[in-house]
């Protein structure tokens, strides 16, 4: 059983968001980088749990990015992956990135490919579906539970106003979110072991780039809060009704 876990590097959730180069680039000054929380807390940890139950499971991590991703990949290996592949490219186009991961996936012959439900920087929520299409296997999105029984996966996925349970034979691509697993902290042994785990760097294959960033913008600042006295709740209702017109 081989699992491929897609890992991406994102700014820490408390990072100040700012841009440089005439608002064409994300300003990385002082930014702490983390593993995208959906990749780390849910898909990677679930893969590790599957390996803990069945020693025959191997976990490969894949990321598409420059050498600045290596610390993140090492951190992910410290949590539990067996080895990692980094496709050396700075592309931000989701089709290009998915094409790289699909190439790794086809070569490696994985039974299961996990992604996070989205990356918290570009919020694309695209890679899983694209990889599944390029590899031509089923894709189940927004999983909140993932169980494996032999070669059949039982997946609970979020739908509008509820959830549904899907059964699918491997191989499958699954995008994971809250519920699939619980966050873990790497321990010292894992951190030591991660140093010597294989991290293979490969060059990207040719693929089209279909989108490009024109620029970024920050939202306009709020005008400021209108405070209403706690003894005058009726006034709040009046403001919401007559001024904001939302009730």
């Amino acid at each position, binding site marked *: 059983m081989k699992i491929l876990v897609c890992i991406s590097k994102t700014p820490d*959730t*408390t990072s100040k968001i700012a*841009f440089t180069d005439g608002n064409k680039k994300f300003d990385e000054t002082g930014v702490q980088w983390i593993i995208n929380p959906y990749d780390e*807390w849910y898909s990677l940890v679930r893969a590790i749990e599957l390996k803990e139950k069945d020693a025959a499971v191997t976990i490969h991590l894949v990321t598409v990015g420059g050498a600045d991703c290596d610390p993140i990949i090492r951190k992910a290996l410290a949590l539990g992956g067996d080895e990692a592949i980094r496709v050396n490219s700075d592309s931000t186009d*989701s*089709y290009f990135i998915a094409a790289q991961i699909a190439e790794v996936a086809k070569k490696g012959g994985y039974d299961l490919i996990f992604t996070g439900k*989205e990356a*918290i920087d*570009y*919020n*694309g*929520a*695209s890679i*899983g*579906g*694209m990889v*599944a*299409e*390029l590899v031509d*296997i*089923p*894709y*189940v*999105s*927004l999983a909140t539970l993932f169980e494996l029984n032999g070669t059949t996966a039982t997946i609970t996925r*979020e*739908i*509008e*106003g*509820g959830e*549904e*349970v*899907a059964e*699918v*034979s491997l191989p499958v691509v699954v995008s994971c979110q*809250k*519920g699939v697993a619980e966050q873990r902290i790497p321990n010292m042994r894992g951190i030591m072991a991660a140093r010597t785990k294989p991290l293979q760097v490969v060059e990207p294959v040719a693929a089209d*780039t*279909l*989108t*490009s*960033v*024109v620029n*970024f913008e920050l*939202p306009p600042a*709020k005008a400021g*809060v*209108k*405070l*209403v006295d*706690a003894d005058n*709740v*009726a006034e709040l*209702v*009046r403001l*919401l*009704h007559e001024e*904001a017109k*939302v*009730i």
Partner: protein
Amino acid sequence: MSVLIFVDQTENHIKKASYEVLTYGAQVAKQMGTTAEALVLGTVNDDLASLGKYGITKVHQVANESLNHVDTQLYAKVIAEAVTASGANVLIFSHNQTGKAVAARVAARLKAGIVTGACALPDTSNGFVVRKTVFSGKAFANISINSPVRIISLNPNSYQTVAGEGTAEVSALNVAVDASKVKITAVNKVSGEVPLTEADIVVSGGRGLKGPENWGILLDLAKELHAATACSRPVGDAHWRPHHEHVGQTGVQIAPNLYIALGISGAIQHLAGVNRSKVIVVINKDPEAPFFKAADYGIVGDLFEVVPKLTEEIHKMKAS
């Protein structure tokens, strides 16, 4: 050349988010000097000709029952064929659960550039540039799509639905549908509740409510407002509320007309999920709570006293 809009359905009815994308897509078509057409998969009981009211000239339907459930593999194939058959060069989805599951897959199949989470009409004056939210609502990016077919998925609640007059031509599209490799064994819908991402009003509770036993006052307020309910992450983590109610950077991202936050401090990760709301009301006993900086209206006070009064006042206002 045309704009094709994917119409999402559930239990044989068109979803609310679909009317929004139909209106949006018709406007994109108008802007590009072309027609707006719709695509409906599965069997639907609603009157499809009436989609003309949203500016649609033609509705393509693949009325195959096996499409009543979303299987991304089947959907991608059928939608891609519909794009080719209708000659569309722009395809539009809602960035709801179905859109998130399917749109990117279709993009890969058609080798079409995609922008997910769009929040405004594309700029088609020179190329095709789509504005989307990034960094979980903390910023916007303008992205150029450079392929012949372009795909947009629109954030729910970011475009005003407008219904006018009109009747659309409904035409059956014959597309072979493969056998599904994904078997749906159960569907659990939370009945009677307003789906969070579709709700106009959301009432949300944080750790300030102290425990699940206190949710009654929040639920009463939500009921009075026909609102959906949400919560902060620690509340979901502690299982005070179901985890699908957790909003924020690592939860659901929403953009209702009105977001009422009760006993939530307003941490940056929480704001990331709700800062696109049109109006934010914060009720918190701590005047220094960071949420007040992101709010439009606020009450500094004890929610256990304020919330029941608020429900009562709204009831009175509605009755008058």
